[in-house]
């Protein structure tokens, strides 16, 4: 017999599922954009990690919209398209998302500089994880200069991405209030 209490629970009228799908769509689009950006000679071999900036922002302010499945799919698509070690980036991103969930309250109360430093640490950790996995699997260390360029450029782009996403968030909130 079914538990009687479950009949009296409130129906989930405000499901996050559509928003989660939208976030997943944007995240995948950013991964594809990363791959596309590499065609620009300037970003050859080291396109900035736009999807990581997006993930970092969403995980801080709307972590309920980015379930771990989204992170997994995002990482896996990047691994497939960049021909990286399958599951390398996916694992790194999932571990990062797990770590961020633990410290999300502290991050929400941090000022921008702390967030930037936090992002630098996160970005470095993701790349370092991939580098270690790559080194273990291939018994070789790849050229580090493109990796540093990628890291540096992603860190430079972080404030721009952050401001853009903050503006979009504000706009959406305003639209919601007006409605």
């Amino acid at each position, binding site marked *: 017999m079914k538990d009687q209490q479950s009949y009296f629970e409130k129906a989930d009228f405000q499901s996050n599922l559509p928003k989660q799908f939208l976030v997943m769509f944007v995240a995948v689009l950013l991964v594809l954009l990363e791959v596309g950006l590499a065609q620009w*000679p300037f970003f*050859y071999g080291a396109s900035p990690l736009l999807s990581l900036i997006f993930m970092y922002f969403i995980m801080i302010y709307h972590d309920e919209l980015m379930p771990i*499945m989204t992170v997994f799919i995002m990482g*896996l698509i990047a691994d497939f398209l960049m021909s990286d070690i399958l599951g390398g980036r*996916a694992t790194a991103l999932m571990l990062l998302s797990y770590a961020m969930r633990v410290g999300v309250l502290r991050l929400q109360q941090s000022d921008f500089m702390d967030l930037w430093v936090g992002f630098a640490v996160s970005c470095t950790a993701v790349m370092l994880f*991939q580098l270690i996995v790559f080194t273990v699997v291939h018994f070789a260390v790849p050229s580090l200069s493109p990796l540093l360029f990628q890291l540096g450029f992603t860190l430079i782009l972080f404030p721009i991405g952050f401001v853009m996403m903050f503006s979009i968030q504000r706009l959406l909130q305003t639209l919601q209030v007006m409605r």
Partner: protein
Amino acid sequence: MRPSDKAKVRHRRLVHVVLIALSFSLMFIGKADLVAMRDLRMSSNDFLAPVIDFVSAPIRGVETMAEGIRTVASLRAENVRLQAENDLLQRWRRRAEILESENQQLRSVTGTVSDENRSLITARAVTAPGGSFAHTILIAIGNESGIAAGDPVVTSNGLVGIVYEVGRAYARVLMISDINARIPVMLASSSWPGLTIGRNGEYLELAFLPAEARPEVGELVLTSGHGGILPAGLAVGRVDRVDGDDIRVRPAVEFRNLGYVSVLIGGTEGVDRSDLSQGSFFTPLPIDDDKRLLEGVNASGTRQ
């Protein structure tokens, strides 16, 4: 906390653990290079490549526009440079015609069999390497056009890489700059054999040269044709730096501006291509001290 919430939290934790375990195990399964994984990769490429093409259209547009502006700004200087280059090329063309005729005569005298049974098919490069961990590109051509794993990919400047995964409409090319790429080469002027090794960077490493070899900066490095997969004589690059055993080669092809590439089809009849997608493009020289190889050097690298 309601019982259903507790169940949700338990369920979420389980999903976390399962996904992390799955992702972690994928790293090893992917490395095992199973046929299923290869098929999965190519299917995903076939599915996602048109989307990437669509997404990167504005990027290509901006790049074309920037290139156009640059070209217009330097039109006059470019015209002068091109005229000078044209004069030089005309002279080289005459010289090439003389050398070609001489080469044909020598081939007929020595009875050398020419390896010219390859046909050329051109394809657009859909992606460029976006990360530091793999140097591969997707090209818009698949097994419908008759290409197969192991086919060399070239531009007019030289060797780009080798096809290593083929899907229905797209194929993935392992570039010579990838860390897994080992290309049997020889120095153009001295004919010493060696291997170029990619470093996932701008330059290649030239290794396994015999101790007697004295490569010079600017010397052309060509494919040697060992292993039978790559035809001999394709330009790989030029020696850029010689620092003891550390010899650096700058690739002949400017990988940053790869728009179109050509795939050389055929010409490897009789070569076992079953193992090609596992990256074993190079057939090692046999360890046989008595056997004489290129320039009288045996497999151990000592001169005979």
